[in-house]
């Protein structure tokens, strides 16, 4: 069954190419679910979806492929199953970490025509970016935070890569840290706001008794039933409007659930155990000072009081959303967060502090994810040169896009769409010559590090000492005054499939040195060292302290390539009226307690 709209848009020939393309989607969260739907509807022939995560309650209000019955199921497989009913694509789901080299060696990546990143963490984004660089495969990078979002096509060798501009580390927390093993006050605040509060007062996922659970496995059905029942019971307690039942809610959340966690012993091998809050009493003494840290008794009192008020409001409002300026919701979240912090022996905070932190938690917004996933899938057609009547675009004629209006950066542009810039010659990733070195199992077991280093020195004309760094683990394996490991075998120094070695010239020269080279170690048949044919240029050594603010033309920068100069003028990014792009904002730091939840 041909996809009529795709045929009209792409033409028959390009449509056939689309049907025979295999693509990789990394991430099945907020952007990933949307992207999967688009790729399926467009008609890509085969789509592999990789995600290690399982579905959490907090995902349901924006990851539209997931339902309450799917909680604790793998995102990748559930997403694939949920879209199957319209799919003409072969869907292959992997519940796995994309950085697992045994499951996904470099060769595995090479089967795809394009990679789509729909990730929420920098480490995996960087990793896929590197794989794209090794294989020279296009990558469509994307990200959102609240109303900010961006997409960026990356064409290795021709356009900026993910690491060409510096990225700050975003603060994200794994679900299990929030749900089971908090170690900072903010974990408790996120739990109180995004889990407990939304479950009790803002949940939209109630489930009917005769719903199709999508499985026939009796144990599985029992597990889902139990989860759902517990959730139901809590919601029922709250919705009963019976204030005497607040005690039961308290018991469940701060005693029974904690006891359940304590029963999972492996969680507490290297952590301090929490202590359930037994025998709590409510004595009606209310502390009104929002700037001080209250006693645990005052927290309990505040919890009960806030719950009473919210229960009352629920009868008319149906659902209540957290709002830091809504005193009832703030008090509930602050008290619940502090009681949990006390259970886990973490410091308590004032309501005022919690207001600031909770207000800074950026929620994921379903519509932003939808828009960004739409743009990502749309942009892939031009990257893959599948559009009818459109001449093949030069990579730097392609556009990235980011939200402008929604990010309050422009009144007359909904999106900004600058053309892609050329690679940054000082990029720590894509400016480095790289290749794949395939070694046999036997060589890995018996070859000494010194043999490998010698071969590299000869092949790429390093005239003097070199240093060898295992980039995957940041271990130094050898340099001019560290030769202890040179006589060990590769296996002994843990060089194996997936290891990335960075070899740098250590020569003491002011004139020129050889640029560094990166080798991805692949395991395969042939014996001996068959180093890849890559050009490793001479560069100026890094002697001057770099002055970031003054990188004008004519000033040679450390590490700058002096051979093979390409004189093309780099296109300047033109932004309407702001210096900080949403792309940057979407990857922002914890400075202001920004937390990106997905």
């Amino acid at each position, binding site marked *: 069954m041909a996809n009529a709209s795709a045929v009209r848009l792409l033409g028959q020939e390009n449509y056939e190419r689309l049907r025979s393309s295999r693509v990789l989607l990394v991430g099945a969260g907020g952007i990933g679910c949307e992207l999967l739907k688009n790729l399926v509807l467009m008609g890509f022939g085969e789509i592999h979806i990789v995600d290690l995560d399982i579905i959490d309650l907090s995902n349901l209000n924006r990851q539209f492929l997931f339902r309450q019955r799917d909680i604790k199921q793998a995102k990748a497989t559930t997403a694939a199953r949920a879209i199957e009913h319209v799919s003409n694509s072969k869907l292959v789901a992997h519940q796995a970490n994309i950085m697992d080299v045994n499951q996904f060696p470099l060769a595995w990546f090479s089967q795809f025509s394009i990679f789509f990143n729909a990730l929420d963490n920098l480490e995996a984004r960087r990793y896929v970016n590197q794989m794209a660089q090794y294989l020279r495969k296009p990558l469509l990078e994307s990200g959102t935070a609240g109303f900010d979002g961006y997409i960026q096509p990356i064409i290795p060798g021709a356009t900026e890569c993910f690491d060409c501009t510096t990225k700050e580390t975003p603060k994200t927390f794994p679900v299990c840290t929030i749900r089971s093993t908090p170690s900072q006050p903010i974990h408790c605040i996120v739990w109180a706001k995004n889990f407990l509060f939304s479950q009790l007062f803002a949940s939209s996922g109630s489930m009917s008794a005769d719903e199709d659970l999508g499985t026939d496995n009796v144990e599985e059905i029992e597990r889902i039933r139990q989860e759902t029942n517990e959730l139901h019971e809590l919601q029922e307690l709250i919705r009963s409007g019976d204030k005497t039942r607040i005690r039961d809610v308290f018991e469940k959340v701060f005693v029974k659930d904690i006891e359940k966690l304590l029963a999972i012993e492996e969680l507490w091998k290297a952590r301090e155990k929490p202590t359930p809050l037994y025998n709590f009493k409510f004595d009606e003494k209310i502390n009104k000072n929002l700037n001080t840290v209250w006693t645990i008794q005052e927290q309990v009192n505040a919890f009960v009081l806030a719950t009473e008020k919210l229960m009352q409001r629920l009868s008319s409002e149906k659902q209540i959303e957290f709002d830091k300026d809504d005193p009832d919701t703030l008090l509930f979240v602050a008290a619940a967060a502090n009681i949990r912090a006390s259970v886990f022996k973490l410091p308590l905070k004032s309501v005022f502090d919690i207001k600031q932190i909770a207000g800074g938690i950026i929620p994921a917004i379903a519509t932003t994810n*939808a828009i960004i996933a739409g*743009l990502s899938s749309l942009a892939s057609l031009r990257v893959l040169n599948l559009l009818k009547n459109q001449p093949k675009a030069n990579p730097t004629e392609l556009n990235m896009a980011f939200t402008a209006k929604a990010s309050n950066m422009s009144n007359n542009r909904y999106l900004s769409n600058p053309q892609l810039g050329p690679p940054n010659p000082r990029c720590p990733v894509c400016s480095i010559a790289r290749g794949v070195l395939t070694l046999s199992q036997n060589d890995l077991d018996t070859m000494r590090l010194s043999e490998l280093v010698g071969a590299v020195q000869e092949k790429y004309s390093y005239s003097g000492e070199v240093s060898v760094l295992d980039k995957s683990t940041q271990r130094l394996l050898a340099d001019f005054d560290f030769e202890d490991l040179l006589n060990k075998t590769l296996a002994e120094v843990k060089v194996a499939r997936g290891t990335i070695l960075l070899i740098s010239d250590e020569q003491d020269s002011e004139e020129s040195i050889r640029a560094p080279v990166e080798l991805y170690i692949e395991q395969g048949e042939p014996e001996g060292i068959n180093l890849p044919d890559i050009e490793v240029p001479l560069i100026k050594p890094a002697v001057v302290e770099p002055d970031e603010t003054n990188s004008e033309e004519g000033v040679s920068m450390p590490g700058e390539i002096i051979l093979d100069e390409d004189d093309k003028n780099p296109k300047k990014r033109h932004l309407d009226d702001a210096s900080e792009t949403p792309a940057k904002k979407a990857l922002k730091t914890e400075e202001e307690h920004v937390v990106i939840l997905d």
Partner: protein
Amino acid sequence: MAAQARMRSAKVLLINLGGLGTEIAKNLVLSGVGFLSLVDNHDVSEGDLSTQFFLSKDEIGTKRLDSAISRIQDMNPRVTLTVDTEDFRQKPDSFYGQFDLIIATDVSTEEAIRVNQLTRKFNVPFFLCGLNGLSGFIFVDLIRFDATDEKLKSSVKTPLGALSQNREVVEVTEYLNEEQSEVYERIVTRNAYKPFEQVLKEGTLKGKLTKRQVKRLTNAVPLTFALFSYRDGYAAVTRHDLEQRATDACVQLGLPSENLKQEYVEQFSQQAGLEFAPVSAVIGGTVAQDVINILGKKQSPLNNFIVLDGISLDMHIFEL
């Protein structure tokens, strides 16, 4: 009333559940709109299956709405959905008076004008959106809308007065943000809107764009306008005829017609009214985000015309 509560009491009508309607329905239901009425009298066709993820292969021939509704409801049981499989064109005028907001997708120019006349009559905010293959558009008529935005006060006080053709600052209040002990401004901007019919007749960009902006403006804008001139649908579109009409549209909009590119004319003549999933996602996401904003937070809304060029990803907002 808090933003969420306003959302939850809102009654929204969505006309047609094609690819674009499906995206909007998904987003509004996920965001927890209170009442969503869907009106669509189409049967599921094979073409629907490449644009609508709430349908399934074995449902060809059934009513589109009947097939999709359980999957829509399943996303959020708390949203009250109303299903209407009658033809929206047969509805009495009063039908349109019962909603807080109306969104029309996949309708002809003639139909859009009529619905818009009724939304004006009953004072209901109106969104019109549609797709032309790789391109899509949004038209907004909120009649009059006061938006409230808050921002850190700069050294100069925000002055009262017109910002642009359709927008005017009518009130600025200063207040102290206790948490940051800094002075903020609460700015009320009055947005004026025009009905669709008037925009088609008189809308222009003359004097609103810089030379550079005019030069870089995507052909998707005059071509979208040219397609509006086929008032009863796109059966009569030919490449030559569309080019004529696009030239006329350039004259009205104040754009140089010599900038019209053959490949764009060709593309629009072949893709008039065609739905395509990724473009649905962008346009549907944008409409839903603004609808949620209008019903809840009431920050600066879209005013009043947007065109997406799916090739360059250009997406400007024009006041027409």
